[in-house]
């Protein structure tokens, strides 16, 4: 490892001159940064600091308020650390499973484990309660089997529910980011260690794991930030006894109208994010690893030993129980008659039905807020496509600059992560006072989605860009390849997988995004999560059924979307 670092340092100057040779002269650093930074300035820094300046008041720095802030901060950290550790516990073996083994149903399982990431929390809460709630399947089964009078498992309203939901949401981040790195690891390093007599375990601890460290850290950071800023999960599954910084900001700003206290909390959250981002960028920067592009046959294989078979089967079962079962509750409910259980009050109506789906196409109450499901799906897909294009367009230049960091990049790198950890509630209020009526223009939606997706896209692209060996570029260039040809034949094969990963992030983030969308959408063009929420905010079995049907459509659409993105191939690229 040490020798690798010195090697890395030694080639820095040489690298820079290469870059000059390969990149057209007009494409210099300030230009790489111009669009991503302007974007962040207008859509993040300006509104965020405007609302902080508007709200902050020194008189709010009382002992009571500070004590309150510290206790909230403590719980926020506590649950985020626990959640991140648990997510790694499930995510790392899964990343290994998907990156190294080939087994039937792999693509589908991988696509399905990515679906939770974009499900609106209302829907996830409904799924978990159907499974683990006091009257969920598991409790009912246990009560019937053992003749219990009370449900044995208390789930909703516990810390366990928060942790489980966070694992459910974020495991796909670890699977994707670490899996991507694992897939690109140069197998020669592991082979060399093995040929020198190292056991598999020793190879894993001394070679593979250290090489994976940047990607594990990157994944942990993203997971941690999501847990740290968790909002919907805490409100819906944790219940009112638990409060993270974001929940406290929401309550203080939007219920008590205590803007100074909300601003204080938002400032603390921003500061923590900044500190964490700086630490993280320092650590990742020191452990950059070169990997080699290569054909995939050498690392993806079928299980050989009984141990490997057991590992695959056990992990698949665990993933099924953790990810598929809670989600399965939704499609099941969307086709079951929910007016059942009223036997003594009316005719029995149990059974399967497609009524909720057909009802989606009818404006039952003649409401002005009725959304034809096809339109909502189309809006969602349009916004998601725009988000992919925008975030890649802005993400590529930023990630390219970060992949060959100079002094400027060291400062900018942590700043790019800030939008992920900054309070979304505060940013939303910032939008209100900064943009006023502009809020209702339709193109603001994909811009906001891009803001959320961009840190992911940059984090996913940067390691791949940094991993491109300069030797190959030099060789190609010295053999007379044009810069474009070098890019196509050297860079792109390495980047392709990371680009697809980044696009998947952008796609799923946009499809499931609710907070910003609900602030920005006009009633005429809502997305699917907005439509789900509209059904759920009205009483009655039909509304509930339609919400479940719409959620099922969202899940199907996301699964299909991830599937398509992953299956996208370039002719002759020969991956898998």
């Amino acid at each position, binding site marked *: 490892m040490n020798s690798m670092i010195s090697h890395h340092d030694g080639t820095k100057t040489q690298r820079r001159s290469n870059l000059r040779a390969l990149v057209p002269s007009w494409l210099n650093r300030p230009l790489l940064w111009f669009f991503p930074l302007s974007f962040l300035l207008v859509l993040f820094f300006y509104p965020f600091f405007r609302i902080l300046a508007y709200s902050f008041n020194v008189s709010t720095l009382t002992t009571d308020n500070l004590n309150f802030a510290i206790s909230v901060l403590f719980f926020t950290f506590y649950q985020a650390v626990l959640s991140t550790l648990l997510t790694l516990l499930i995510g790392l073996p899964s990343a290994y499973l998907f990156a190294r083994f080939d087994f039937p149903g792999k693509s589908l399982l991988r696509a399905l484990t990515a679906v939770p990431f974009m499900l609106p929390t*209302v829907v996830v*809460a*409904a799924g978990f*309660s159907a499974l683990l*709630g*006091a*009257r969920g399947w598991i409790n009912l089964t246990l009560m019937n089997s053992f003749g219990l009078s009370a*449900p044995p498992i208390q789930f*909703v309203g516990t810390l366990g529910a928060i942790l489980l939901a966070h694992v459910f949401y974020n495991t796909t981040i670890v699977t994707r980011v670490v899996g991507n790195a694992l897939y690109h690891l140069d197998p020669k390093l592991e082979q060399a260690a093995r040929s020198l007599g190292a056991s598999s375990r020793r190879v894993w601890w001394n070679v593979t794991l250290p090489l994976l460290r940047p990607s594990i850290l990157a994944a942990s950071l993203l997971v941690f930030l999501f847990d740290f800023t968790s909002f919907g999960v805490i*409100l*819906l599954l944790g*219940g*009112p*006894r638990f409060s993270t910084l974001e929940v406290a900001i*929401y*309550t203080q700003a*939007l*219920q*008590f*109208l205590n*803007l100074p206290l909300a601003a204080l909390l938002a400032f603390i959250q921003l500061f923590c994010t900044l500190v964490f981002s700086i630490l993280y960028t320092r650590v990742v920067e020191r452990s950059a690893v070169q990997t080699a592009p290569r054909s995939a046959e050498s690392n993806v294989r079928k299980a050989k030993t009984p141990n490997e078979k057991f590992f695959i089967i056990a992990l698949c079962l665990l993933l099924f129980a953790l990810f598929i079962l809670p989600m399965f509750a939704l499609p099941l409910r969307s086709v079951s*008659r*929910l*007016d059942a*259980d*009223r036997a*003594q*009050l*009316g005719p029995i109506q149990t059974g399967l039905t497609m*009524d*909720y789906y057909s*009802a989606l196409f009818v*404006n039952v*109450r*003649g*409401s*002005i*807020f009725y959304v034809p499901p096809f339109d909502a799906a189309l809006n969602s897909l349009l916004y998601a496509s725009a988000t992919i294009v925008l975030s890649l367009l802005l993400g590529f230049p930023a990630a390219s600059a970060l992949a060959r960091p100079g002094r400027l990049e060291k400062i900018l790198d942590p700043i790019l992560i800030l939008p992920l950890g900054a309070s979304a509630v505060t940013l939303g*209020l910032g939008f*209100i*006072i900064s943009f*006023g*009526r502009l*809020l*209702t223009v339709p193109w603001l939606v994909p811009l906001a989605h891009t803001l959320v997706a961009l840190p992911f896209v940059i984090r996913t692209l940067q390691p791949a860009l940094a991993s491109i060996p300069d030797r190959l570029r030099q060789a190609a260039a010295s053999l007379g390849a044009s810069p474009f040809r070098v890019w196509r034949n050297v860079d792109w094969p390495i980047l392709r997988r990371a680009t697809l990963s980044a696009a998947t992030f952008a796609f799923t983030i946009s499809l499931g995004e609710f907070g910003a969308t*609900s*602030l920005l959408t*006009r*009633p*005429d063009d809502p997305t699917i999560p907005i439509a789900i929420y509209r059904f*759920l*905010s*009205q*009483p*009655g*079995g*039909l*509304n*509930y*059924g339609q919400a479940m049907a719409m959620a099922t459509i969202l899940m199907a659409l996301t699964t299909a979307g991830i599937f398509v993105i992953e299956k996208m191939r370039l002719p002759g690229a020969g991956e898998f």
Partner: protein
Amino acid sequence: MKRLLLFISIVLLLAACGPQQPAALTVMTHDSFAAGDSVIKAFEQTNNAKVTFVKSGDAGAALNKAILSKDAPLADVFYGVDNTFLSRALAAGIYQPYDSPALKNIPAEFQLDPTHQALPVDQSYVCVVYDKAYFASHNLAVPQTLEDLVKPEYKGLLVMENPATSSPGLVFLLATVKHFGDPNYLGFWKNLRQNGLTVVDGWETAYYTNFSGSSGKGPQPLVVSYATDPAAEVMGAQTPPPDSPVGVVLGPDTCFRQIEFVGILKGTKQLALAQKFVDFMLSAQFQADMPGQMYVYPVVPNITLPDAFTKYAQIPTQPATLSPDEIAKGRDGWIQAWTDAVLH
């Protein structure tokens, strides 16, 4: 040639400021707002306008966003402040007064703002709602009063919304303040906590995830919700059941009356149109559309209600009320005391 140019410029001028261009009106509301498509279209046609609705969160959040954007308002009209938050809206000065001619049709009991900045639109009752099937199959009497709720036979049966994050939760807290008085209401809440009260963040979770009488089939057969739920469950069913699956507890002070208001936001550039829209919300046409859309009662008398309303919705005879001034003085303190007593 010159004539042609003149002709073209006249055509362009007419196209630019011709009468076919509808005026845009933006109406900010809370998330629960709903209206009939045909009713809104009728208003748009009559007034050659295009109405855009901006939904801005639950009742409390929507109001605070309106207050926050006071200097550069997001909309021309704001609908959805209720009597629990009325004082905050008036203190913030977001509205401009409008002495609508339609106010003469509205009984004085609803007109809580004598300055006519906030005009009453609808009323509803937050009550304890019960699952009929549960109480029938368990041979358990339905609770009749607030005091009943702390009895051991109802242990663990009630779910309510957090008053700090939800409008019905706050309204129910106010009902207990009215009934038991300050500070005795806290004793009631401590007992209720001992008796297994479940608190969730908002109405959607309480009704669909926790309440057993809804399609979510949760664990609790008692929920803090609205008196119109029995009608809503019938109107919102695939095949209307012969009876409503849910009922309302109609004891003394188990219900609290909520009145919602509309007002014209200061700084509107569409004052005349905004005034017309307010008149329209108070007109018989909109008032008759409202019950079936939002499951609320009109404030204008003698409006024909949907059949399900007359058949299933229950009107409380002894609802609790507090004046906007009392609420303004006590609200935040009560929420804080409640949080300490029930959640910590």
